């Protein structure tokens, strides 16, 4: 659709596993993603660790090369574009990293760090680079006089702000935020999330917000996609997902959220078994091995991600559930959402 800023079709990333010289297997980290992000829209990408969301984020900014599928940004196919073709788009597409300690070059002043995307692309903003840096620092809530300081002189939260400022420096249209608050103290998390939300509104940025914390995602994102083992199992508007989840996995996830304002009746949905290995995912529906409602058809046929009656979101399930979350009898371990 021409209105989408970012359109992803069948995005796939397989990592070959080498046993010596032969290829012993294939890690299907991301296995056919479909989603779109419109200008100014925030899409959350959630799932447990290992589901492939970080890999997806890296592919969007072309730090990783997709094995299959396509990525379209502003109408142009950037799936396998070379460095030269990507050049004009670098300003429009930026990324914020997770680790505030590793994402800043310890030998550069923060001013230099923030200016890096400009320097790399040879952009001199009107008014000078320094003025822009100070402007950005103010925007993210840092003292602009500290542009000459080094990262080790800032706290974790402040460093993350620097990372945000860096991503904003070239004036992007879409920002991929890869777990931007996961490494921060809980008290700081809220500050930074609020900052991001203010920036998003002020600058009209589109976001792909990757996280595992459902509460944070709810606070920030307009739309949410739930990933499991390299696939999207449910995608839709935030309220639809949070209030009327249809996929058993989504329901399990939400039931596990320790939230003051309860989303559903007391009691967790426990999922049995461990997450299968992405080297050899289950046939048919990947979630069937842990799904409390799995039936024969689930093993035989892979469900497509489509809209069903009874909901606005798209889900990939043969037997979606409706209604508020209820306790389902099951044995086994909790579906812990690892922090």
């Amino acid at each position, binding site marked *: 659709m021409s209105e989408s800023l970012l359109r992803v079709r069948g995005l796939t990333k397989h990592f070959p596993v080498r046993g010596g010289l032969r290829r012993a297997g294939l890690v299907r980290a991301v296995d056919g993603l479909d989603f779109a992000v419109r200008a100014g829209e925030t899409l959350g990408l959630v799932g447990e660790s290992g589901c492939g969301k970080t890999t997806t984020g890296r592919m969007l900014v*072309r730090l990783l090369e997709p094995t299959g599928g396509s990525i379209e940004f502003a109408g142009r196919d950037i799936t396998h574009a070379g460095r030269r073709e*990507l050049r004009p788009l670098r300003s429009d597409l*930026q990324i914020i*990293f997770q680790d505030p300690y590793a994402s800043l070059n310890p*030998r550069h002043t923060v001013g230099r760090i923030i200016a890096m995307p400009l*320097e*790399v692309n040879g952009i001199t903003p009107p008014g000078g680079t320094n003025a822009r840096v100070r402007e950005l620092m103010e925007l993210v809530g840092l*003292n602009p006089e500290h542009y000459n300081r*080094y990262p*080790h002189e800032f706290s974790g939260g402040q460093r993350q702000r620097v990372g945000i400022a860096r991503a904003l420096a070239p004036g992007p249209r879409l920002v991929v935020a890869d777990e931007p608050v996961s490494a921060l103290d809980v008290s700081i998390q809220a500050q930074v999330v609020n900052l991001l939300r203010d920036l998003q509104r002020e600058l009209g940025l589109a976001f792909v917000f990757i996280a595992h914390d459902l509460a944070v995602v709810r606070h920030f994102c307009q739309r949410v996609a739930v990933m499991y083992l390299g696939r999207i199992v449910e995608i839709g508007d935030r309220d639809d997902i949070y209030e009327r989840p249809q996929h058993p996995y989504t329901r399990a996830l939400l039931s596990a959220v320790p939230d003051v304002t309860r989303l559903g009746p007391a009691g967790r949905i426990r999922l049995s078994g461990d997450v299968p290995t992405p080297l050899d995912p289950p046939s048919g529906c990947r979630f069937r091995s842990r799904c409390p409602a799995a039936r024969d058809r689930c093993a035989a046929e892979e469900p497509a991600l489509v809209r069903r009656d009874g909901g606005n979101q798209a889900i990939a399930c043969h037997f979606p559930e409706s209604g508020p979350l209820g306790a389902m009898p099951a044995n086994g371990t909790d579906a812990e959402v690892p922090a």
Partner: protein
Amino acid sequence: MSLSPVDGAALAEIESGGAAGAEAGVSRERRIVGRSPGQLAWLRLRRDRTALVSGAMLVLFVLVALAAPLIELAYGIGPRDQFQSKLDGFGMPLGYAGGVSGDHFFGLEPGLGRDIFIRLVHGLRTSLFIAFAAAVLTAVIGVVLGTLAGYLGGWLDAVVNWITDLTLALPFLVIALALTPTLTLRFYGQRDAVPPAFGIGVLIAIFAVFGWTSTARLVRGQVIALREREFVEAARASGAGLGHMLFRQLLPNTWAPILVSFSLAVPQFITSEAALSFIGVGLTEETPSFGRMIYQSLDYLQTDPAFVFFPGVTIFALVFAFNLFGDALRDALDPKSSR
């Protein structure tokens, strides 16, 4: 989160909120400038007494070496002047301690009767020049190859590794011995005078060709560790080219081990030059050489210990000072304290 104690006070200002305290804080903070990790290391070095003493000795040696012609002018005796009338029938220096006197500060060489002090000064100059030049060359070659191999990986890494292994396997001494007369013959035929600069150049070239491998390995290891860091990915995501990655992002983070390796390479080259001059590679008898003097003096340990003493103490002090300074440098640059 460790903060530099120096900036603790200023940091509190930042935490309490950017713009609010900025006005009042600016005038106070202007006096405190951000300290780079390099500057911090320098401060630590300055505080270390061992570093100061050994550093001062090194500076003294370098000054003496640089001022050799002036010293010769003031002293009045050149390195080739002979005083055989001050030797006895066996060619041993008359008087005390190998001929030490007001005219000859360190006495005379047995046999040829040349002044030891001025020969030491000139020899120091030659040795230091060779050692520094070789250390610089090996550092440059090692850094270039190590960085390229570490960052680009793949076939380039394999090729560089192969070249490194080959260089390490080459019989250094045999090649040096074989090459020198061939080169001399090639450039100067059989009858032309060979200028001392040629011998020096050959020696430096030999050191450079064989000595870069440890620096290369060191840098390669550093770069491999660094290239997965997120700040490197951030630069790549912004579209940084190879040049920017190498020079702006990676190298500034590798200079610490390079510097330490350099400071330890210099004394190694001094002793290597000594050994090689003794067996006739590179410097001829006419060029005053530290190394040749020491090796010749060892034979006279029983009969003219002063002849051993002066060059021996000098080289001991020189190498010792370098090693101490290198150790102090390594302590000062320790990454644990420059977070």
